[in-house]
């Protein structure tokens, strides 16, 4: 406890950075993935599937270090880590988003068309709400992996909670490594809970049905 109590402000600062570096890719990547999953031409689905599963297989460390060389971003700062994590979020959310949209019942689509909704209204008022449970489930998975994967960014100079692993291992301060593990864990659980609550709030009908069953 001693190390932690002495360094509590420091850990909080790292936590703030960690949150930033995880939340931006999560929000950005999910939005892009949903748009991609919904509006991609059918011809391109197979090749996008293939490309994204290949991307998903690229080790994060390798992507962090090669991005500045490949696309000319600055070596310094969290940009590379944010871009790389965004790519992983897209890869992971693309599949769950396609699943979520495919589970929208055909009857709902039929009724919507019968009511004369245009494509945009159909998407906003029918498809998106009905896909929310699937999207939320995918988002929870992406959130937990992103929060833990962000820590590898510390290896390439992003001072987030992963710093505690590197520094603690060098200095053999077990408590420092443990503090990092716990802090990431707490963030991930809190985020998971938050997403779950938001998902519940967005789908009041699902709760009612669950009660009646």
């Amino acid at each position, binding site marked *: 406890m001693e190390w932690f109590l002495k360094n509590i402000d420091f850990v909080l600062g790292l936590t703030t950075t960690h949150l930033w570096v995880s939340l931006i890719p999560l929000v950005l990547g999910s939005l892009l993935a949903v748009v991609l999953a919904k509006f991609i031409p059918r011809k391109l689905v197979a090749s996008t599937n293939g490309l994204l599963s290949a991307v998903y297989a690229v080790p994060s460390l390798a992507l962090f270090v090669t991005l500045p060389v490949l696309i000319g971003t600055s070596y*310094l*700062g969290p940009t590379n880590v944010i871009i790389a994590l965004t790519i992983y979020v897209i890869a992971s959310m693309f599949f769950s988003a396609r699943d979520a949209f495919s589970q929208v019942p055909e009857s709902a689509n039929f009724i919507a068309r019968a009511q004369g909704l245009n494509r945009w209204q159909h998407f906003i008022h029918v498809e998106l709400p009905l896909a929310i449970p699937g999207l939320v489930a995918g988002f929870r998975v992406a959130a937990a992996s992103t929060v833990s994967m962000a820590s590898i960014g510390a*290896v390439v100079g992003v001072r987030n909670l992963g710093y505690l692993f590197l520094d603690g291992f060098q200095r053999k301060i077990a408590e420092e490594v443990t503090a990092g593990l716990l802090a990431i864990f707490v963030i991930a659980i809190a985020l998971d809970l938050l997403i779950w609550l938001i998902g519940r709030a967005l789908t009041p009908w699902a709760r009612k049905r669950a009660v009646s069953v």
Partner: protein
Amino acid sequence: MKKTAKLLIASAMTAVLALAGCAQTPSEPIVIGSQAYYSNEIIAEAYALVLEDAGYTVDRQFSLGQRDVYVPALLSGEVDLFPEYTGNLLQYFDATATATAADDVYSALTAALPAGLSALEMSGASDQDSYNVTANFAAQNNLTSIGDLAALTGLKLGGAPELAERPYGPTGLDSFYGVKVEFEATGDATVEALVAGLVNMANVYSADPRIQQLGLVTLADPLGLFLASNVVPIASDAVDQKARDLINKVSQAMTAQDLIAMNVRSVQEQLSPNQIAREWLFSKGLIK
């Protein structure tokens, strides 16, 4: 891209400390970087504290990873001041460098540095690659110098993955001293691997406090296989003369023993780099 990145770091790092809308200082802050190495961070912290004490505004961008990450940042002006090591930095800019003595390395480095960067005064403190064995192994085989290893067979050398390709790695050991080794990449756990007997000899930084703590024996290097690697501040043109003078005083005051003592405090007392640097500067009369 760069702007966003800077903005992000700035907002994220200072969010807890500073409120938005605080009074801006008229001068640009001096951005100080450090490696992801606790000892380097202590030195960077010493630079920061001395400059702050003299009224400069300082932006700490610590633990920036390896040279690949931060040297381009120094060149592009994203970082202004960085504690470095003469030998290792010389090798970064000139892989074929032949100088090994401290002064030769320093002058080779000043020549090799790209325009816009300058090496300030180097310190007597050094933190360089060295080959170490356990006290037991040294006693059993009567080892004091690297050359003594030539009589042994089946040696296993531990070190970071890149040691395999460094001029002072397995190839250099053979050509300088006739020592033949099998290389074993032991990563961040090199000292542990040596103590556990997974390797017989290991490349350890000379200021690593565990050399003293664990009673490791550093083998002498009479033929100059290793480059001397003294602590040296690297400054961009954005660092003015007054600031340079202040940093030079830090370099002059820091002895090899001081650096090791600070590292020992870091791993034993587990103090923050800020506290270790502040107390050392205070003991040297460099800050009030």
